């Protein structure tokens, strides 16, 4: 485990062409890390997230992605992710290959990845066209009952990036609140970057919270506000009004690019990004 700046962590662990998962189910989405990947101009990434959310809408719209593995690609409670749609419908700014799952299937694929099994198994995709659309969804006959069950190929990212409330100086990471598939995404990857709200001398007692031990973590990065406009339970709330505003910002290619230029590319780090947003509100 190393303590790195976000710039160093992305330079070290996210190369062009890499398979990268920025996880966090609505909660603790690593926006600061996604923005740094955009600033460093990464290309040809295979992006993995159950819910691409605004962060992948931004990365796809800025041309970082070649492929997307996902299970629900909307702006939660608002509507479409317009940049994702533009990439799939019009190949803008470049074509995007997709591996599309259901949530249950993608969760099973992460679990298999964490357990280092070749595939996950579930009673899923029953009589749906998804199993025809995604060649990674197949089936196996149960050796005990003879039942046909669906399988999904394991997900094993080169690098997973998470955001967490806190880490201690040794690099143990504690996450509480809605925990999504973070633990599975962490354990299925070759390298793990965790951005955190704060670094403390000692983690609070964490009964039932998820703790990722330091020897699983490649790098810890101090990044206060790093999940905004998603949220960090106990630190700040989800900015639902921003999620609603994103619909208009992202609908049009030009207004999207202008926003990204002003609020991401022109900012040297996440602190400046947050300052730039404060100036416009």
């Amino acid at each position: 485990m190393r303590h790195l700046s976000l710039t160093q962590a992305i330079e070290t662990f996210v190369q062009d062409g890499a398979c990268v998962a920025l996880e966090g189910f609505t909660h603790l989405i690593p926006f600061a890390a996604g923005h740094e990947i955009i600033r460093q101009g990464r290309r040809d990434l295979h992006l993995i997230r159950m819910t691409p959310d605004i962060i992948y809408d931004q990365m796809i719209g800025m041309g970082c992605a070649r492929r997307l593995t996902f299970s629900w690609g909307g702006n939660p409670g608002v509507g479409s992710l317009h940049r994702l749609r533009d990439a799939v419908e019009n190949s803008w700014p470049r074509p995007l290959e997709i591996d599309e799952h259901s949530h249950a299937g993608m969760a099973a694929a992460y679990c298999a990845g964490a357990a280092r099994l070749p595939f996950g198994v579930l009673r899923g995709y029953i009589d749906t066209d998804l199993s025809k659309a995604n060649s990674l969804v197949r089936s196996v006959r149960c050796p005990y009952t003879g039942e046909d069950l669906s399988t999904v190929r394991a997900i094993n990212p080169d690098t997973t990036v998470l955001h967490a409330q806190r880490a201690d100086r040794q690099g143990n990471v504690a996450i509480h609140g809605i925990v999504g598939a973070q633990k599975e995404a962490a354990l299925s990857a070759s390298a793990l970057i965790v951005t955190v709200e704060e670094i403390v001398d000692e983690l609070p007692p964490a009964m039932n919270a998820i703790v990722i031990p330091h020897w699983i973590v490649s790098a810890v990065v101090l990044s206060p506000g790093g999940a905004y406009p998603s949220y960090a339970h106990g630190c700040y709330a989800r900015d639902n009004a921003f999620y609603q505003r994103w619909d208009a910002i992202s609908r049009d290619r030009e207004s999207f690019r202008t926003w990204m230029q002003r609020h991401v590319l022109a900012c040297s780090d996440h602190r400046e990004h947050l300052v730039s947003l404060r100036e416009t509100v």
Partner: protein
Amino acid sequence: MKDWTYDEMMTVAASRRLWDGCVCFVGIGLPSAACNLARLTHAPNIVLIYESGTIGTRPDVLPLSIGDGELAETAACVVPLPEVFSYWLQGGRVDVGFLGAAQIDRFANLNSTVIGPYDAPRTRLPGAGGAPEIAAHARQTFVVMRASPRSFVDQLDFRTSAGFLEGNGARARTSARGAGPQAVITDFGVLTPAPHTNELMLTALFHGATVEGARAAIGWPLATAADIEILPAPTADELSVLRALNARTAEAHRRPVELPA
């Protein structure tokens, strides 16, 4: 003069179908409003599960996203996401699942993936999320959708979630454990599957809606029951609880969030 909207009546009609103590797998939007209306009126012990892993949640305002902090703070427990789908949903612990979609056909199969061909879609929709497995494993499902000939179609562009497949008992021969869609609640009334053919049939109308209006909104020749029930208008209590919930929610979603320092 009626003092309620058909959208409000859809929420009320969905809410009335839920019983005290029933375990509901809830989606965002109208289903979330219906489930919480039931909890705040006739079903105080209803158990609400959101796919973000919040079980037994009692939100004061409706969440904008499936994972708002409000859901975790008011939950009986919060479990990891793979567990929600494997132990709880696939494990057969859910009585009622709610589904919506962009397209539905006469056997209540659903499309929430694409309009047009999958490889070159005219409209790319958000996709499956939890729907295919909710459709398979909840003991029964309710579909909630506003009706138009563009959404209630003769032929789906893509089958994201299975209803009754081609009808005539086809679903019962698959490995899906749940009974499938038992009601489609729309903005003129309710369609339910006919016993043997499984084809959706108009069985209930909202107060003031007509059979002709219903037929005009459906993209296939709609079968109608011999006796169509007229559902009572929302009560004063239902309306005031629902409107207060929606007002609290709108206010909460507009509230500016303090940007992290």
